[in-house]
């Protein structure tokens, strides 16, 4: 289909307001939160309803046009990177909270709803939405679902996948289906919802999402503890887990991160080699006793300073410091490259040592900020893009860090997703058979590979289903995929 005819057809669905096709405006959408990759989409469409999404996708399907869904564009793996000659479906106009069902602890929202709005909506009822990625004030629920977002509280409460209970999904052929029970448990059949959450937009577009709401805990206690070095902080993490305590969160920042955060948001962090933020929540008597034990463990590991949050304002300050970490890097470095590797918690000392060796070898600084409780590291490789060759060097160092995670039994990514950025590393973690079997799922949902093609897998496969005489798939022509 010619571009002009496609624009007319889309305008027929959405009106002229809902279609962006001017080059300058399209540039706004050329990347997501990861700016290393940029592609200007052919067309951006802004649906306002599930029916709009369905008609857009059906049109794409009929014309063999690839499409990419995008929420707020805060993703850090290039998952919402547009595809060339494709349509970018931006869901930011689908922002309605459709239904609140406190008795069943559920809420139904459209994909463009911002994460924090969900908690705000039900706060008066004593409820909240547990997954809290650092981007929660801007990132959308649809994007969270696509990436299976984590956050600082997943150690106790789980990830997005544990909190999405049902979804209305527009499949890549434009049909609509409902997966997951929503309100009722144990819907018969395969756990299609479990497979869909975290599929990075490659299996379809969720247009209505049912989330689980969690009761606000009776008591919350938060402390910030400083240590001379990360080893001391690591000892606290092992100590807490060893006691059978599951805190709501344990976060760690190293010296470089502390400096950056201090420069950016001035939370008054102690001068230290490492800082932990530890939060416990639950019934009061339980929290009281366990928090006392956590304080002892910090002292046993020679904390140089311990601050207990006296009230919500101080607690908020601790979290502000932690959640500002990525953005704060701009204060100490022109550019930085984030990794998202995961390691078994017990490997933390060995991996930190290796990261500091690598940092020295490459002559680049690495700041470490991570979800220490679940072993999810966010090493930030600092570099200067205007220095010749340093960007490449930073990317290589970041790669070596993630390979270190794999060598220690971990994963490429804990919450940012594979997207465009890490697909080249997939063969380090999975065999060809592993990836081919994963792509069987892709072929069941999206036989023509129109939904966010080219992401996750280094070698996308066509599913060999196109009937009739052979003609080259548009993606094949563009050199994006090869025939299975």
């Amino acid at each position, binding site marked *: 289909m010619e571009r002009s005819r496609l624009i007319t057809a889309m305008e027929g669905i959405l009106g002229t307001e809902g279609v962006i096709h001017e080059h300058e405006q399209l540039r706004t959408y050329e990347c997501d939160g990861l700016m290393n990759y940029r592609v200007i989409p052919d067309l951006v469409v802004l649906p306002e309803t599930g029916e709009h999404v369905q008609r857009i996708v059906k049109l794409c399907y009929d014309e063999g046009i690839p499409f990419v869904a995008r929420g707020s564009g805060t993703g850090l793996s290039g998952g919402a990177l547009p595809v060339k000659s494709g349509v970018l479906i931006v869901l930011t106009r689908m922002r309605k909270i459709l239904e609140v069902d406190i008795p069943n602890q559920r809420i139904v929202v459209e994909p463009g709803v911002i994460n924090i709005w969900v908690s705000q909506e039900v706060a008066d009822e004593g409820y909240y939405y547990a997954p809290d990625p650092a981007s929660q004030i801007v990132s959308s629920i649809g994007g969270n679902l696509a990436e299976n977002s984590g956050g600082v509280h997943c150690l106790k409460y789980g990830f997005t996948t544990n909190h999405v209970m049902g979804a209305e999904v527009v499949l890549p052929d434009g049909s609509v289906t409902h997966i997951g029970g929503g309100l009722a448990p144990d819907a*018969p059949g*395969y756990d299609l919802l479990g497979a869909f959450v975290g599929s990075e937009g490659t299996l379809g577009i969720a247009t209505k999402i049912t989330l689980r709401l969690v009761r606000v805990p009776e008591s919350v206690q938060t402390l910030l503890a400083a240590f001379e070095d990360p080893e001391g902080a690591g000892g606290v993490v092992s100590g807490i887990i060893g006691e059978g305590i599951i805190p709501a969160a344990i976060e760690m920042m190293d010296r470089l991160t502390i400096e950056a955060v201090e420069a950016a948001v001035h939370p008054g962090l102690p001068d230290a080699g490492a800082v932990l933020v530890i939060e416990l929540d639950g*019934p009061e008597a339980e929290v009281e006793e366990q928090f006392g034990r956590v304080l002892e463990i910090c002292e046993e590991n020679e904390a140089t300073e311990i601050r207990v949050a006296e009230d919500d304002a101080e607690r908020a300050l601790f979290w502000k410091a932690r959640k500002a970490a990525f953005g704060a890097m701009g204060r100490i470095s022109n550019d930085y490259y984030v990794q998202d590797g*995961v390691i078994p918690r017990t490997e933390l000392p060995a991996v930190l040592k290796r990261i500091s060796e690598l940092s020295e070898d490459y002559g680049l600084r690495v700041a470490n900020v991570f979800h220490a409780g679940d072993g999810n590291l966010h090493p930030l490789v600092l570099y200067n893009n205007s220095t010749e060759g340093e960007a490449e060097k930073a990317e290589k160092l970041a790669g070596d860090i993630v390979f270190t995670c794999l060598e220690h039994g971990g994963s490429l990514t*804990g919450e940012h997703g594979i997207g465009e950025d890490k697909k080249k590393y997939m063969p380090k973690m999975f065999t060809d058979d592993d990836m081919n079997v*994963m792509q069987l799922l*892709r072929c069941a949902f999206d036989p023509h590979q129109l939904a966010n093609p080219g992401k996750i897998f280094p070698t996308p496969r066509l599913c060999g289903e196109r009937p009739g005489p052979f003609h080259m798939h548009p993606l094949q022509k563009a050199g994006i995929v090869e025939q299975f």
Partner: protein
Amino acid sequence: MQTERGITGDLRQIVGSDNIREATTEDAIEGVQPALVVEPGSVEEISGVMKLAAREGLAVSPRGGGTKTHLGDAPRQLDLIVSTTRMNEIMEHTPGDQIFRAEAGVRLEDLQERISESDQMLALDPPESGATLGGIIAANSSGPRRYKYGTVRDLIIGITVVLHDGTVAKAGSKVVKNVAGYDLSKLFTGSLGTLGIIATANFRLHPLPKASRTVAVEVESPQQAQEATQSIVHSQVEATAIELHYAEDEKLLTVLLESIPGGMDAKVETASFLLKQFGEVRTLSEEEEDHLGPLTPPAVADEIVLKLGAPPAELGSVLESVLGAAERRGLAHPRITGHAGTGVTFIGFSGEDEDAAVGFVGEMREIQTRKSGNVTLQRAPLTLKQRVSTWDNGGDYLGLVRRVKEKFDPRGGMNPGRYLGGL
């Protein structure tokens, strides 16, 4: 199928002659007897068996502890049972990481015993004794503690599967937090052997609770059962399980509370305070506590068990509809138990009058599916399953279920006929 020397001989080559035998009537599934039972001892051996099965066009049914073989419709074809009995190694348990990796044939009891040495547990407590990890995943078995910890999908972190043609694939990892690649662990959860054989699995663990007590309240009506459940659900007591035992003579809602010794009394006090508005509250004896409620009378020989999934806040109307339908069909007061906090209810009733049973199941399905709930025949005689399927039709996602099945098992050799939609 003919047990030609060729096939048997080839299987012997793969698994060793001690690990293959002719099937007996005891191996039959819903009256369909396979020819052979093989017990591969490794992922490679499972793969070898499946390659051969594909070559010979054999229909394969995977089996763990055999505790759930009654779940599902009658097989359309059954030649070979692949038993995971010998796949019983716990490959790794790292207490500091709160994870383990194990082969699918490891029995849950054995695993828990081993893990408990480190004061940890796998937070799954299905009632069947002798169930294996692979079977628990395939049947998506769960128990009372699902209220706090979730079900298999919330605890499994990695899987190795063998497909119909012997392809071995893994997904996930051994770390709790991981979003690399598609989550096939969840896809295989509840797949009942129809997508492939689960060979190994990795799970996250939880600390063993240091103290526990169960409080119970005597309720009088469906509405009260619902209200008592809701009072705990919306409190901040963080209960571990909320169970319902609803018989004609004793109607009890029990709440399992787990904590540290110093937190126990306060939890019991809060829960008791909430529950006492509905009736007399007591703390269960240790013997009763093992069952999270009164010892339910043993099932009668011809008992049919339905599993209902419904929104938890509708417990009252679910119970009313069950009792009403049973009465209209002339059935005695059903044996009702359930995970009240999560909306799962089990209905046991006599299958003596099959027409009445068919009518009852039909009425339950009509009511439940209208409210986007579900009804599964957990246990039923074959004659009943031939009249009403084990499963609901699955709603508008059935087409997608079918396409997934076609991709993973294009020749239809994996447990054919037992799943919903005749898959």
